[in-house]
């Protein structure tokens, strides 16, 4: 289907189903239960999952295929966000032009930075990209405050021109981003007994774009271009002596992944119209690196999983305070309850970083290929069990067990 082979189609369909039913999948716990804290099915987080998914998928096109580790991709995310917000300020609150401009501008930005940085490889390349991104961050935070809003971020104001739209709503408020009138924050709740599921317009727009982006990534991975990129990673020397110019290949990969980042940035601003400079800091670049490695660099679905994993911890674990803990363990006798709270306390709430750090280490130690590898192992386990249970020996064993 769509020019993909069977496994890829399956993968795409899985992602599509996951995206479509995310509001259900992410809200498995009834609202009244103590575990409701672990529900992640609210619009903002769902949007974040897919947006960072796009970011990571794009990053992986560069890193996973060519092995060039950019430590400055957050800069493109930032450029994307700033362009989108400027579009909202100047043109209209429609998200389409905003997203287009983000992709375009980040592409141009990536072309310039990539052209310079790709003159070096390995760690030297990483540091060059890092330096560019850090410069962008530092300047956006300070000297460029008039363009970027500096510390407080670039925001919409009541007196923005918005030449194709309105400066303020009838109620005297700033209009919100919308897709031809469909507000991005528009949500619809489905209440099924004790369960509540939220369907949000912005989320589904992001999800659709993620699907498109993911589909493109599959195509790129499977294309001759993708193969050339892997060849670059494997042996540049051989590439050159085979009559291939590696520079345009790596540059194209860099620009494409920069545009993915810009797209993610534009979407981020479309869901929540504010662009902060921290989006460009090295920690943000580092985050996407971590997402990709955590999920499984070079795999298609890995980066999306990694993005979900990190964002989940950031948003869910950080909200578990002692109050919540006491709620969970309330059924226990007092002494035990306090003991449990004391044990869990350092790992949640303000300790969420600790948990994340420990999980990073566990994943990379025990699952060298990232989360995808974990999934494969589980898969293999099941498959092996299947084989066993159908094999003649297993049958015999079952019979024996039955007889005993």
């Amino acid at each position, binding site marked *: 289907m769509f020019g993909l082979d069977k496994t890829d189609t399956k993968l795409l369909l899985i992602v599509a189903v996951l995206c479509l039913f995310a509001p259900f999948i992410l809200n498995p716990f009834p609202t009244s239960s103590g575990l409701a804290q672990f529900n992640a099915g609210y619009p903002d987080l769902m949007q974040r999952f897919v947006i960072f998914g796009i970011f990571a998928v794009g990053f992986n096109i560069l890193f996973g295929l060519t092995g060039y580790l950019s430590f400055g991709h957050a800069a493109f995310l930032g450029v994307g966000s700033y362009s989108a917000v400027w579009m909202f300020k100047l043109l209209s609150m429609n998200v389409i032009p905003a997203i287009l401009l983000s992709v375009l501008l980040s592409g141009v930005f990536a072309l310039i930075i990539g052209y310079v940085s790709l003159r070096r490889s390995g760690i*030297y390349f990483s540091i060059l990209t890092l*330096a560019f991104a*850090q410069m962008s961050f530092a300047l956006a935070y300070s000297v460029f405050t008039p363009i970027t809003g500096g510390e407080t971020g670039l925001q919409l104001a009541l007196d923005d021109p918005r030449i194709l739209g309105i400066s303020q709503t009838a109620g005297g408020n700033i209009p919100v981003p919308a897709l031809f009138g469909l507000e991005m924050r528009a949500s619809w709740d489905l209440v099924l007994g004790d369960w509540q599921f939220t369907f949000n317009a912005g989320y589904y727009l992001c999800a659709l774009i993620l699907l498109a982006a993911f589909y493109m990534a599959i195509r790129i991975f499977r294309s001759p271009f993708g193969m050339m990129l892997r060849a670059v990673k494997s042996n540049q020397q051989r590439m050159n002596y085979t009559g291939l110019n590696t520079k345009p290949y790596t540059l194209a990969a860099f620009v494409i992944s920069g545009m993915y980042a810009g797209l993610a940035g534009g979407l981020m601003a479309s869901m929540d119209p504010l662009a902060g400079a921290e989006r460009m800091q090295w920690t943000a670049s580092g985050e996407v690196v971590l997402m990709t*490695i955590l999920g499984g660099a070079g795999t298609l679905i890995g980066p999306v999983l990694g993005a979900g994993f990190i964002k989940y911890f950031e948003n869910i674990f950080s909200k578990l305070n002692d109050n919540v803990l006491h709620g969970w363990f309330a059924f226990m006798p007092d002494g035990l309850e306090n003991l449990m709270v004391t044990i869990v306390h*350092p790992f949640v709430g303000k300790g969420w*970083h600790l948990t*994340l*750090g420990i999980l990073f280490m566990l994943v990379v130690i025990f699952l060298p290929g990232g989360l995808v590898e974990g999934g494969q192992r589980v898969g293999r386990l099941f498959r092996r069990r299947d084989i066993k249970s159908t094999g003649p020996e297993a049958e015999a064993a079952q019979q024996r067990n039955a007889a005993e």
Partner: protein
Amino acid sequence: MDAIILQILNGLDKGSAYALIALGLTLIFGTLGVVNFAHGALFMIGAFCAVTLSRILTLSRTTIDETQTDFLGNPLKVEVPYAHDFFGPVVGDALIDWAVPLAILFSIPVMLLVGFVMERGLIKHFYKRPHADQILVTFGLAIVLQEVIKYFYGANPIPTPAPDVFRGSFDFGAMVGFEANQIIYPYWRLVYFAFAALIIGAVFAFLQFTTFGMVVRAGMADRETVGLLGIDIDRRFTIMFGIAAAVAGLAGVMYAPINSPNYHMGMDFLVLSFVVVVVGGMGSLPGAVLAGFLLGILESFASMSAVIDLIPGINQVIIYLVAITILLTRPRGLMGRKGVMED
């Protein structure tokens, strides 16, 4: 003129901090080839060795002072350090005062131990793994170390002053014939500079005058073959890691009086130290030191208000600008070796 001399002095001092941190990092990163995102954490742990020692020395028993009240109006609890009980008030106070220099001795075994445990327990398994995996695991470790320190010491900076004799500054300008008050320089920074020079010299000597450096370099390039030549490369890597941790730790201990240690100080230095090492050139110790000083001095110049007025924001980006310029003009940084982490 005096403004320039002043900034050179400041630059040397900043540079010695950068050089010292980068030195430890380049032993692990440039020599062992491990992208160690936990290096900043090692630096931070060093600084907290100083904090811990001063906490230990000021361990106190509480007595109630009925004449004063605390914020709730209760009688004030007064803390009397045990050091006073054991050594008498004079020696006790002197010990507390000298906590930071004493922490140097204290930190060496601690940091060596930290380094050994870290290498044996974790890094050992990652030499052959992709750099990306190394980043993930060491970053995870850095977070864990930070959070542990935060759990015990809080997030706020903890003042850790230098001994009284080193506090304050001297008038360097007046000593060399300038007007008074034009070029002043704090004593502790002079100490820091000298200390950095000493450590850098010692590490150089060790790697230069023994075959240790060559073996480790060879081991990094090709562990298998070095093993075939009968050399136990694992042990040497462990030692190297321990030394690097100790260097990072010492840099941290000495830095504590300059800026009060806090749990995320390592992260603040992390990016910078990577930049310094790479600009110096992968695998080159002198390169890292040179780059440290160079960036320190240039950063100081860029912070002069005359320069900022000329190019607004230059002080924000100078380090990165210099890094980009150097990396574009010299493919392997200042003194990099061919083939180290170029792919």
